[in-house]
């Protein structure tokens, strides 16, 4: 049965700390699963309590604390990561359901050549104040820039509209910023969307998908993604 092959044996399973209020006896091998996934190009395997979210797996089990926990209910976007190239809320994904997925976090955005162009744009436009929402804003914007089709504010459904500030605001509505840095966040994303990227294609630097976490040039330069 898929998802069941890697369970701990019973003795090892009981070594997991149980949730308060539940007897130790229920924490048997039926409630933990061996999860294998790729994080920022590196294969990782974790024995996970089935209740573990992808967010807690990244932060608590892999030490990747760049991804932030805000509301833990999918409403603030601070935990946004890219899963198989698509932006998702890591707090709403069970880690066990991400078995086999390729996850990209803020830690994986910068390449050996320096910061990702969108990170540079955030610096250039002063697109953050406290910075807590920034990792989620970055991952969300990178995912958003690879998405095609209309949004709720697009007048013509047949169109693949240009990313006007109005389009960017609508498409980024899943990311809240309590400092209210929205004006500069929109400006940073807008400049990145219209800058043409390194190779003249606006998505060239950010269109990594299922199999290529970085553009070929960066991978060839020996980024961590090349190790996968």
């Amino acid at each position, binding site marked *: 049965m898929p998802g069941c092959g890697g369970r701990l044996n019973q003795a090892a399973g009981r070594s997991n700390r149980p949730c308060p209020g539940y007897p130790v006896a229920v924490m048997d091998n039926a409630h933990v699963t061996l999860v294998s996934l790729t994080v920022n190009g590196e294969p990782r395997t974790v024995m996970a309590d089935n209740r573990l979210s992808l967010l807690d797996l990244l932060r608590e089990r892999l030490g990747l604390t760049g991804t932030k926990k805000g509301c833990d209910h999918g409403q603030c976007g601070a935990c946004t990561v890219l899963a198989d190239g698509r932006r998702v809320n890591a707090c709403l994904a069970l880690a066990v359901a991400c078995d086999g997925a390729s996850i990209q976090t803020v830690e994986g955005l910068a390449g050996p050549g320096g910061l990702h162009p969108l990170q540079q744009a955030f610096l250039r436009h002063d697109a953050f104040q406290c910075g807590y929402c920034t990792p989620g804003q970055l991952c969300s914007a990178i995912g958003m820039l690879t998405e095609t*089709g209309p949004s709720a504010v697009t007048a013509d459904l047949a169109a693949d509209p240009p990313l006007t500030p109005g389009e960017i605001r609508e498409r980024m509505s899943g990311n809240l910023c309590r400092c209210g840095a929205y004006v500069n966040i929109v400006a940073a994303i807008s400049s990145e969307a219209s800058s043409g990227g390194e190779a003249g294609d606006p998505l060239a630097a950010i269109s990594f998908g299922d199999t290529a976490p970085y553009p070929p040039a960066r991978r060839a330069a020996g980024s961590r993604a090349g190790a996968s």
Partner: protein
Amino acid sequence: MRPFSYARPGSTADAVSQFRDGAAYLAGGTNLVDLMRLGVTAPDHVIDVTRAVSSQVDERESGGLTIGAGVRNSDLASHPLVRERYPMLARALLSGASGQVRNAATVGGNLLQRTRCPYFQDVTMPCNKRSPGSGCQATAPGADTAHLAVLGHSTCCAATHPSDMAVALTALNARVRVASPAGDDHAGAHVSTANPDGTRVIEMPGLHRLPGGIPERDTTLRPGELVTEVELPPPPGGRQAYRKVRERASFAFALVSVAALLDVGPGGRVRDCRIALGGVAHMPWRAHTAERVVLGAPPSAAAFAAAAEAELRYARPLPGNEYKVTLARNLITDVLGELLP
């Protein structure tokens, strides 16, 4: 969160056969994981169905579409045939949630999401839907009723169904295919067609139900039934729209939403009119009364206003959500006016 076992079966038959009392089907997780974290629901076995149902959109010979229950909301919204032939569906999907949530949420999960009634989600409050027999805080004096029902509610539940997509599917006469566990003889099924392959088909809005005396049941599905596909009939003639009113410009549930279609024949009379409302009832609300007023008559602003009035005549707002009646009436009138050729 209560500990649970987890399985990710590779087929519908395997998924359905694993279901037992206390189990839950998981798809995108955008609602279920949150409800488990809140303690609203506590399954002891989670069946991940993302590999057990189709995630494809297929065009049928009739011109209709078959949409796998595992299709992500974002993929359906951006599908060229949905944008071209079922614009109200694309609009409804795009107006729901956020980019991140739409990337994870599936068609099946969207249909089966639970109400966002604040008292259902707060486990310290009585709620007949979450804990049958405990009472309804939403209908108690002083309750926050701003998001609650004005049509079809009962004394024990005033929750609304939160989906935008389901409102458009209702106006489009979509059919939901569900797989039933073996041994289910389909007795007493509501609007059902039993098929030899163990599936049955439910026409929207028959998937959902009004709360009556058993608000713990959101849908007409029986235990263990799994939504596998949504079938869209060939695209209807006429013009379509979906309009949603909410408290902020984006990423909020509908206060009231309207999915509407208007087809005016060559003789200048309305030959097809479909109206469905979101945010007003325990299920997507097909406004048949309003449709009957408009059908066969020459379209006019006065006719649309009369239709809206007829539909809302029997609305029973709660103290504090009377505004929804006015809003729904104005929305129906205005959206139909916008659809005039």
